[in-house]
């Protein structure tokens, strides 16, 4: 697990303490020493403030921050320019309105965010914990913010740790305590912490007064996994301090009654706070494109201003008697220069500065909608999508490459025991399969329920199933609120890999019957008991061959009562000897098992209940707790197997370092002495435990591991003549079953055992001890030693575990591929598994050609391989028949491929493949791959993963998506968006991505259009006023035109416009391609829009010009119809561009128009001497009472919009885009819609077939179907040859 391997940043940023020391000294805060007290005071207190501003500092600080932005500087510059008398164009007070408005909007947003932080800070600072008080000689309640370094804090079970403290005392006799770090990294398995070593024992509890040791430790840093220091006792003895002595802030104490610690880091110096970095800032692709066009606008502005400046100079020079007209005597050149700046002010609107604010607002609203999408709601976890990055929503619509993790992302990471084979007999566990079906169905129903928002009985039942789970997750989130209460039984402690689905395994009735024999008086049927040994051993192995930690919510986990007084004596019916006999390997009589099985079937049908009764009656002390046992496993497979064993009453009840407590059916609890654990490693592909058998007292090795390995090791049974037949039979049968399992897509594990004679064991032990103690190549020696032990195994059986694909994964991947997104799977798993999953999730299709790149040797060989593969691809492309290529690369090859001289070849090869699977890759490699593709191919990348090993990849990609699943929150914490299921990706990209992108792109284009269109009106006027910078509009109206009258509609357009309905977007993933290719916002679109704006402004200016030419119209009367028609044009232009109009649109559009007209009307009535020189008194009132005004407005509007209107109509009729076709489909009635949809898919398929890619069958949209056995079968068959 990568739990604590987070990237260490900022460590060097504070190498020294504030006082310049390199280390921190902590003593008890009760100390009398003045100097030390001073030192303690110099450390920061536990009060946290994450807010940026205080009440007083808000305005100056916020202003300062905002002024850092270039856009705002531009505004301020303009405002300042207006105060220069020779250039001023408007009244200075008008010119500061835009900047004030922009600043105010941003400030309000900041203020609101800060207030929320303040509220949460206040809550956290106000939490209460117990601190030792010197005055009162006892622990008193104090608020968190009053905790200081050196304080003694006492915590009880389930309380949250207020600051980083050193563990000094634990109520646990072994001096350990457990913490749950879910709040920190989201991992739900408990971690053990140890009291500082060699701490003098002081009776029952630690007395703070007697604590005189001095702690020296490193300065605060953000490395969660490291803590170094030492504690110096008064006796000057030093004890090293390690990470496992440290209790981290915001973790929760679990399973330990009381702990006491001394605070070493508080407040912002705690590791939790140091690791807390705010939301991420990324710049989206669209924004980069936008910035280019803003620069173009600047160029345009400069050109326009220069034109005006030069024009003015020339005009002035031609003027003979200037003094009559223009009351100053500046030279033409200087006047021209001044005019340049005047024009910059007049035409300032051309630079769409308010666009940046608008984009922010729009993105916030888009995020609001994404977060509120019901389809992203996960009922099991009661979670929605989390949007952590605020400004890359539109990037979701432009993704070209998706890099996905496998386990936990594509699959559920919920390993569920499905079936097993023991001693060559298959137990199909039909009930269990049915149970899994039910879960599946429920989930499917649940999702359809959310999709179609219709309540159904099924979904209700689903809810009730999930309620346990959801309350559990709530519990982990809110653990501290129950600190005072005793943990309530309704909230069982949540731990990883133990959802009801994983736990509630339905035993196979047949197997149960066999097991019942153990407790039935008839069990001494010899052959049956022979098989029974196997069965018992099998479950024994399942139960103990693991590293699972057992706990129960009410008790500290390791103190399982059974372990203290061991109870072989409790064995119910049999004497020890009987059981010994049972476990003696029998020879010879393996005869016909079939017959025995039949006999067994007729055995006591109520045997199971007998077993229950006997247990209930005779093993009362262990029984009540048994149901509440919680297994916490490192890997989900282990948990699955332990749960499986438990379903057969073979329960792992407790674990300590030396003993395991196991309950066997009919025998009650047995203590098993644990001799060794030979942990899993990837070379051996197996793990073993060495135990002393409680009944036979023999040394037994239980091994479980990959089938290929175990089968080999079990090959040569030691006494060939004695058990050859039976073992051979078992192996044969098991292999057959294994193949079946694999075909079904189950993960298989083989279970084997070996009985060691004591002499053999002694010999091995010696060499093993040597290996353990050796310093040089210890690893190798240990490996060797383990291999020496794991030979001549007796095969017991095999298990099949389902790691189900998450629901709708194949559909999602297929949809993404149809959308033109290349999906890469990067996994740490082995090649076979990776390919398996790739098949199951339809990444690999039956018609695909699989290319594997495995080379262990040299760079050159690798290069040759890559080239060879490439030629193969080229050949394949030329030939008909193959649909596509899938490249499978292993980590080793990837290492080579990522090298400088090979990466070109690698990219070229992978670019031609439809999918790439990288197996056995390290986290770093994952991020390298993403980086390589992103930078070299210049594409938009998305990385999705759930575990800590995906963090670096998520961070590197343009868009990082975390799946909040079983493996904690680290991926989520580093992601831009966090979803709970892989299938959500489909809607997130295809629908929300598409929408966000088109909306934003269209809005930006519209903004440019709007500004250019309006500003050009002013520019054209310059040709008729001697380029003097005159405007024909009231300056307030001019400023407000952009800021108020026409600002709301584009915002709404950016938030709500919907070109195609969500349903259609999901059904036709091809529509996503328009965003990928940036169709909505190409440079050509930008310039076309500009051209249109130019045309419209020409119309909008010159129609009134000719209508009023030579008349007695004054400036403002001339400007009035121009302004009004500009408004109408701009608003109606949006109506043309909008794909949807809701009542909100109508409201805003009509509102804007009404606002403009009423504003100008009122202004023209009220404003008597205001706003010189463009006093509007009477102008608009008079104008709007004249028919000419309306005549001009109507003509102008129609003529200006005509080309765009026509263009749309023609394009849509002659060569409609895909998006438009889809939009047209939306308008059809359901019947036609379906028909069209089919037709679409057919044509798509045909066109693809023409492009030599796909088979048609893949294009139908299929009903969810999760394990896909059929596909898998085909897939296996297809890939088998390549693999072997």
């Amino acid at each position, binding site marked *: 697990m990568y739990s604590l391997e987070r990237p260490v940043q900022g460590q060097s940023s504070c190498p020294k303490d504030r006082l310049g020391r390199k280390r921190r000294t902590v003593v008890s805060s009760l100390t009398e020493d003045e100097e030390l007290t001073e030192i303690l005071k110099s450390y920061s207190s536990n009060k946290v403030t994450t807010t940026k501003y205080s009440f007083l500092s808000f305005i100056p600080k916020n202003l300062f921050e905002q002024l850092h932005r270039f856009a705002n500087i531009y505004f301020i510059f303009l405002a300042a320019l207006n105060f220069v008398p020779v250039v001023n164009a408007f009244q200075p007070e008008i010119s500061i309105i835009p900047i004030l408005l922009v600043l105010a909007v941003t400030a309000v947003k900041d203020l609101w965010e800060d207030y929320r932080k303040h509220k949460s800070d206040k*809550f956290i600072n106000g939490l209460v914990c117990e601190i030792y008080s010197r005055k009162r000689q006892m622990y008193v309640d104090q608020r968190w913010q009053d905790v200081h370094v050196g304080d003694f804090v006492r915590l009880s079970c389930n309380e949250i740790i207020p600051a980083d403290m050193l563990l000094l005392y634990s109520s646990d006799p072994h001096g350990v305590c457990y913490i749950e770090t879910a709040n920190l990294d989201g991992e739900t398995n408990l971690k053990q912490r140890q009291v500082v070593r060699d701490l003098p024992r002081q009776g029952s509890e630690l007395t703070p007064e007697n604590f005189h040791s001095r702690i020296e430790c490193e300065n605060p840093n953000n490395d969660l996994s490291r803590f170094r220091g030492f504690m110096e006792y008064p006796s000057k003895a030093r004890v090293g301090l390690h990470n496992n002595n440290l209790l981290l802030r915001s973790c929760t104490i679990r399973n330990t009654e009381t702990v006491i610690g001394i605070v070493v880091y508080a407040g912002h110096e705690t590791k939790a706070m140091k690791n807390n970095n705010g939301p991420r800032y990324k710049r989206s692709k669209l924004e980069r494109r936008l910035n280019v066009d803003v620069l173009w606008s600047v160029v345009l502005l400069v050109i326009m201003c220069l034109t005006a400046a030069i024009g003015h100079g020339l005009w002035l020079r031609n003027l003979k008697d200037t003094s009559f007209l223009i009351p100053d005597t500046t030279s033409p050149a200087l006047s021209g220069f001044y005019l340049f700046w005047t024009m910059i002010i007049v035409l300032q609107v051309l630079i769409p500065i308010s666009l940046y604010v608008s984009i922010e607002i729009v993105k916030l609203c888009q995020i*609001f909608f994404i977060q509120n999408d019901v389809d992203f709601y996960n009922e099991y976890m009661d979670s929605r999508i989390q949007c952590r990055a605020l400004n890359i929503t539109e990037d979701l619509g432009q993704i070209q490459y998706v890099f996905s993790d496998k386990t936990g992302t594509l699959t559920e990471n919920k390993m569920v025991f499905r079936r097993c084979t023991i001693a060559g007999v298959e137990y199909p566990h039909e009930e269990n399969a049915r149970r899994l079906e039910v879960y599946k169905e429920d989930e499917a129903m649940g999702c359809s329920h959310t999709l179609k928002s219709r309540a159904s009985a099924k979904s209700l039942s689903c809810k009730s199933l999930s309620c346990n789970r959801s309350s559990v997750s709530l519990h982990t989130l809110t653990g501290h609120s129950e600190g005072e209460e005793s943990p309530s039984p309704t909230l069982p402690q949540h731990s990883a890999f133990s959802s009801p689905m994983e736990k509630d395994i339905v035993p196979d009735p047949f197997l149960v019957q066999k097991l019942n024999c153990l407790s039935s008086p008839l069990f001494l049927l010899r052959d049956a008991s022979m098989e029974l040994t196997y069965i018992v051993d099998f479950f024994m192995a399942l139960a103990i061959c693991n590293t699972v930690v057992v706990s129960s919510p009410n008790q500290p986990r390791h103190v399982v009562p059974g372990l203290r007084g061991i109870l072989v004596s409790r064995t119910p019916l049999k004497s020890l000897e009987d059981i010994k006999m049972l476990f003696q390997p029998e020879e010879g009589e393996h005869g016909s098992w079939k017959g025995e099985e039949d006999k067994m079937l007729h055995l006591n049908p109520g045997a199971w209940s007998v077993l229950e009764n006997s247990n209930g009656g005779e093993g009362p002390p262990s029984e009540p707790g048994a149901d509440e046992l919680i297994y916490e496993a490192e890997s989900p497979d282990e948990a699955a197997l332990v749960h499986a064993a438990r379903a057969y009453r073979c329960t792992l009840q407790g674990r300590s370092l030396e003993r395991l407590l196991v309950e066997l059916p009919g025998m009650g609890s047995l203590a098993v002495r644990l001799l060794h654990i030979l942990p899993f490693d990837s070379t051996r592909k197996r793990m073993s435990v060495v135990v002393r058998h409680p009944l036979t007292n023999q040394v037994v090795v239980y091994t479980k591991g990959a089938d290929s390995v175990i089968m080999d090791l079990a090959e040569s049974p030691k006494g060939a003549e004695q058990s050859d037949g039976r073992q051979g039979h078992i192996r044969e049968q098991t292999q057959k079953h294994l193949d079946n399992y694999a075909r079904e897509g189950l993960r298989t594990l083989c279970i084997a055992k070996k009985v060691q004679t004591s002499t053999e064991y002694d010999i091995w032990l010696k060499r093993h001890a040597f290996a353990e103690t050796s310093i040089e190549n210890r690893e190798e020696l240990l490996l060797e030693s383990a291999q020496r032990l794991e030979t001549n195994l007796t095969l017991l059986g095999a298990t099949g575990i389902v790691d189900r694909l998450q629901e709708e994964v194949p559909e999602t991947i297929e949809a993404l591929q149809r959308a033109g997104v290349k999906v890469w799977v990067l996994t740490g798993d082995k090649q076979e598994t990776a390919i398996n999953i790739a098949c199951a999730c339809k990444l690999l299709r039956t018609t695909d050609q699989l290319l594997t790149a495995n080379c262990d040797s040299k760079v050159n060989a690798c290069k040759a391989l890559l080239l060879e593969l490439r030629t193969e691809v080229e050949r394949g492309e030329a030939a008909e028949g193959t649909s596509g290529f899938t490249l499978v690369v292993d980590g080793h090859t990837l290492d080579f491929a990522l090298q400088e001289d090979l990466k070109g070849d690698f990219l070229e090869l992978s670019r031609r493949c439809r999918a790439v699977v990288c197996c056995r890759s390290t986290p770093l490699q994952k991020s390298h791959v993403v980086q390589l593709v992103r930078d070299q191919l210049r594409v938009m990348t998305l990385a999705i993963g759930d575990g800590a090993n995906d963090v670096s990849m998520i961070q590197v990609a343009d868009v990082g998506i975390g799946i909040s699943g079983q493996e904690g929150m680290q991926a989520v914490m580093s992601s831009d968006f966090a979803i709970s299921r892989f299938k959500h990706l489909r809607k997130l990209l295809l629908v929300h991505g598409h929408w966000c992108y088109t909306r934003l792109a269209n809005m930006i284009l519209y903004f440019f259009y709007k500004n250019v269109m309006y500003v050009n009106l002013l520019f054209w006027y310059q040709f*008729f006023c001697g380029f003097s910078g005159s405007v024909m509009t009231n300056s307030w109206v001019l400023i407000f035109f952009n800021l108020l009258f026409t600002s709301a509609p584009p915002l709404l357009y950016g938030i709500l416009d919907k070109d195609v309905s969500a349903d259609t977007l999901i059904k036709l993933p091809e529509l996503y391609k328009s965003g990928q290719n940036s169709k909505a916002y190409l440079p050509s679109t930008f310039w076309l829009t500009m051209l249109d704006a130019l045309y419209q402004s020409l119309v909008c200016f010159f129609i009134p010009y000719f209508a009023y030419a*030579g008349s007695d*119209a004054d400036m403002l009367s001339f400007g009035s119809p121009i302004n009004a028609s500009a408004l109408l044009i701009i608003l109606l232009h949006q109506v043309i561009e909008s794909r949807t109009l809701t009542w909100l649109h109508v409201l805003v559009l009509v509102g804007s128009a009404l606002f403009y007209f009423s504003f100008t009307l009122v202004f023209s009535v009220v404003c008597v001497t205001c706003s*010189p020189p463009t006093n509007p008194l009477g102008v608009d009132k008079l104008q709007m009472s*004249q028919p000419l005004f309306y005549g001009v407005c109507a003509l102008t509007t129609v003529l200006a919009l*005509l080309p765009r209107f026509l263009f749309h109509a023609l394009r849509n009729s002659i060569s409609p885009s895909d998006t438009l076709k889809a939009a047209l489909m939306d308008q059809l009635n359901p019947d036609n819609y379906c028909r069209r949809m089919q037709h679409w898919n057919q044509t798509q398929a045909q066109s693809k077939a023409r492009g030599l890619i796909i088979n048609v069958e893949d294009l139908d949209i299929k009903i969810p179907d999760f394990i896909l056995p059929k596909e898998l079968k085909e897939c296996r068959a297809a890939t088998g040859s390549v693999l072997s």
Partner: protein
Amino acid sequence: MASNYNAKEEDGHQPAAIGHGGAGTVKNKKPDNTAFKQQRLPAWQPILTAGTVLPAFFVIGLIFIPIGIGLFVTSNNIKELEVTLTNYSVWLAIFHPCYNCSQSYSWNSTKPCTCSVPFSLDQPFESNVFMYYGLSNFYQNHRRYVKSRDDSQLNGDKASLKSPSKECEPYRTSDEKPIAPCGAIANSLFNDTLELYYIDPNGSRTAIPLVKKGIAWWTDKHVKFRNPGGNDNLTVVFQGTSKPVNWRKSVYELDPSDPDNNGFINEDFIVWMRTAALPTFRKLYRIIHKKPNMTPTLPLGRYILEVTYNYPVRSFEGRKRMILSTISWMGGKNPFLGIAYITVGSVCFFLGIVLLIIHHKYGNRNHSADIRS
């Protein structure tokens, strides 16, 4: 912005957790399934295709062409006559009666120059006739010029009367006395006097009554422009101020015939102060009211325009005109709008036909594709 901001990022605590101490009050995070939040608001989806926009084009065509014809006819019914008072471009200018005046006259001249321009009407002007003076190449819309005024002073503000706005510079003070009205606009007030005579067939001249009341906007006359001190004796009110440098008379002596038309509320002055939009403009000078009997306001025949030439336009190469015009409901004579309407209407109609063809060609194809599938 429902927040990316989860307390977990902050410190690992969920502030919202206070709410659920008990297991019963579990708050569901499920988003509301409302049409708005799920973006399913009922919407009208205008998709512009040849078929759907067809009617719009025809409708526009059908509406615009009649309007255009109406406007054109109206405009053609307006009678307008223009009399040039100066003309530099034509070599015949030398024979123009006002040639001498226009050549010699400048702001410095002390003696008024007069000239009389004869013209004739081919058709009688009925209803009210408006008499304009027109100037060309006069940039009344120049920024510096437009700014050079003080609206508060003109609104009768006494403080501004004594110390006009800085914008009026350099026409703010003269001889250390504030100028009233200040600024370049006022300074350049058009001060020609035009008189119109009808020449009877028998040769005698009849003066045509020119009404100078009602030429300014009502709001200007009654709200925007006010004399300081209301109806006090204007001579007293304007004491201590100086007349604009180019003026011959003080502002309170502009209309000796009508005491209510003096000071800032002099209508000629007000009209001038409303700066024209374009460098070629006309301004209303007088109104010739319709006669009560059936005789036309201006019968056809010969006329003489007597010009007291005070306003030099040579310095800015301007032209001066006198315009007689009747007006209609949509203003003065301007055939442009009518023609534009007719053109746009016809273009729309034409495009409508084109679209109809396209619709038949492509729309049908799409349609048949539907059916086939």
